[in-house]
């Protein structure tokens, strides 16, 4: 009996001690981590959306932890302990089959894009292997008053009727759009700068102040393509053909081929809403990029658009972008 006590009892006692030391005690301490500045609890509908996210296992493909590594800068600033105060169950995840979503609300704020993407990711990202969540949508003959149907490209739309989001999808959207990192207090921010949309290098695009300085470096095609693919192609597509009904083509677009680049520059700086493009009225707005990209980067993107897919727009310079920025919205 004594041997049994020593082996089974002794080892269990040792293990119990370690479990308290390595499991319970860190749990107790870390559970009390206070919320970081600007980190807020979710609203009711966002919390509902988070439950949809959990139930459908989004975090088996998506992490929500930005590491202090240079390759993670595209996903935002490094996660801080205070970011997780309201996150139970935790959704840090262990695999990145898809991109990190910590800051996706800032990166991809368009509800229309998010809905199309959830309905069928391949409608906007042809190479995507993310599952379709079409069951979170209803197909109806006519959208009820006040509800905008999801503008799906023909190949992905149901044969009859229009697609409207169910409560699940609405909640999930609210949650996704709520995923925005709170900026760190300035002292910390200097050490770990926030990088919202992606600059070509993957380093955060330091906003205008820095960018205006070396104004005038020449157009760099490779950089332009990379910037376009990181910031614009989700909607306008790598082919420049856009998504019918949802996002206009830039191939052959009037503003892009216009010798006067004002409209083109201002669209990228300040976004665009309720404007008929190529005879089509688009329901969703084009987001603004002025606060996220430098004049140099914007000039690069614009020149890339003006020289691709058969477009022949006159190239622009960073100075021209700076001038439009100076005029204000």
């Amino acid at each position, binding site marked *: 009996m004594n041997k049994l006590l020593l082996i089974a009892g002794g080892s269990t006692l040792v293990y119990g001690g370690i479990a308290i030391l390595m499991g319970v005690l860190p749990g107790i301490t870390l559970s009390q981590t206070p919320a970081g500045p600007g980190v807020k609890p979710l609203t009711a509908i966002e919390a509902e959306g988070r439950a949809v996210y959990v139930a459908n296992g989004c975090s088996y493909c998506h992490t929500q932890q930005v590491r202090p590594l240079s390759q993670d800068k595209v996903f935002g600033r490094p996660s801080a302990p205070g970011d997780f*105060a309201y996150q139970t169950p935790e959704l840090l995840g262990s695999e990145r089959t898809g991109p990190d979503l910590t800051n996706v609300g800032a990166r991809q704020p368009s509800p229309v894009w998010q809905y199309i993407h959830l309905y069928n990711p391949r409608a906007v990202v042809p190479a995507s292997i993310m599952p379709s969540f079409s069951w979170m949508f209803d197909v109806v003959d006519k959208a009820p008053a006040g509800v905008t149907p999801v503008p799906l490209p023909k190949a992905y739309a149901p044969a009859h009727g229009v697609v409207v989001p169910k409560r699940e999808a609405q909640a999930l959207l609210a949650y996704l759009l709520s995923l925005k990192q709170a900026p760190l207090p300035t002292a910390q921010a200097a050490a770990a700068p926030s990088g919202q949309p992606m600059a070509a290098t993957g380093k955060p695009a330091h906003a205008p102040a820095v960018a205006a300085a070396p104004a005038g470096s020449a157009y760099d095609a490779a950089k332009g393509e990379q910037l376009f693919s990181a910031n614009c192609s989700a909607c306008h597509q790598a082919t420049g053909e856009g998504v019918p009904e949802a996002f206009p083509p830039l191939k052959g677009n009037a503003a892009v081929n216009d010798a006067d680049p004002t409209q083109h520059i201002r669209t990228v700086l300040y976004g665009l809403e309720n404007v008929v493009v190529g005879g089509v009225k688009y329901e969703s707005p084009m987001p603004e990029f002025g606060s996220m990209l430098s004049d140099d980067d914007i000039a690069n993107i614009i020149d890339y658009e003006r020289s691709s897919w058969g477009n022949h727009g006159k190239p622009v310079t960073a100075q021209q972008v700076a001038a439009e920025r100076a005029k204000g919205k």
Partner: protein
Amino acid sequence: MHVSGGIHGDALPPAQPAEVKKTGPAMEMATAHPSSAARRDDQALARVFSAYTICSVAWLLFATFIGIVLAYKFGAPDFGSGAWLTFGRLRPIHTNATFYGWASIALVGLAYYIAVRSCRTTLYSTRLAWVGLWLFNLAAIAGTIALDLGYSAGDLEYREWPWPIRLIFLAALGVTAWNLVATVARRTTDDIYLSNWYTMGGVLWTCIIAIVAILPWYQYGLGQVSVSGFYMHNAVGMWFTPLALGMFYYALPKLLNRPIYSYALGVFAFWTNLVFYPIIGAHHFLFSPLPWWLQTTAIVFSVAMLVPVLGGSANFLLTMRGRFGELRHSYPLAFILVGVIGYLVGSTQGTVEAFRSLQAVWHLTNFTVGHSHLTMYGFVTFAIWGGVYALLPAATDKYPGQIGLALHFWPALVGSFIYVISLSIGGTIQGLDWVRELPFIQSVVDMQPFYVWRGVGGSLMFLSHFAFAWNVWRMTFGHSARPMALVAAAEEAA
């Protein structure tokens, strides 16, 4: 510690050469005229062992079928769309069914058999063994249904089941611990053979892990992250590992008909594993906002884990020294050898992966998926197969055929090679794509061919499980083949 353990003491080791003819477990079914009470006990044990094995086979087939569906979805993401078949619900069903259906049930069945035979006693309670089996199955069925309906406790690796279901699993563990310890307590041997240290320890420690994982009070936000690190690591390494190692310590000497190379080394590995392993869970969250010291401690002890891992594997390999030729006609031995190598390579890989410089590339990629299959499949699953093939025939006196064994062994081996190698290469490429700061979608595109190869490997693995099912059938209810060469060889040697 009584270093010589069961080897030279009064307690006969499970396969002490000179004694095996008289009292070795393999002979018990066959020896002359056991009393009818003893025969009844033997039959009851054989039934328990068979039932656990058969249930585990059903779970293996189910879990790996789900695995195949998941693998297919990487190439055809629109296949099986709809809530019940969506990737994010099937993924935890696959892992939990593998863990708590297949591996847990199979290993507990083996642990019971080993406890009874190595302690030269009878099961403390056959009824408890059956109750445990029902509870294990109930938990796994309820967990599967809950996850498929979207009732998930959170995407917390290996503890997604809602807590009431995890309580059922805990009850199953409790029943098993009680029964196992009580069985060892009524041993007729003086010493407790090393195998039982590992199996009893595994069950008892896992009760603690399960309790730590269920209690909610210290699991908010980052606190829960640290508990997740602790749990996901310990649920593997303090549950499957000790049970599989305990099985090695029994089945290897038995198959080879010679004692374990060094009993003392086994004891040493037991205690070092116990102390080092539980400390390293945080290495699943390197570069996360978890305190840096916690991560660094985890890395340091991940290196320390080389001590029990190398010690344990060396012990098994040295036990086999000079006898590798027998692999040619002994599939059970071959399965166990793969299991031992899987243990060695998988665990060493775990240590290497824990370094920050390598984690910076491999973390969050498919390399990790390769690693988890190297350990759960290459090590644990092969170990279980070896154990079942070595011991189930001894319990039931029925044997699988060589062809069935070959049809199981080779596709499983080749399939898992393809699986692990393709994901290791693909994962590395994926990680390097990120380091080079290419657009994210590039890493998705670059993984495609490796996802296909993973599917090929996975299909071979899946097919081999049908051969396993057939073999188990022959070892239990079906028509037995002639006794395996291996047992005959052991007798000659004796």
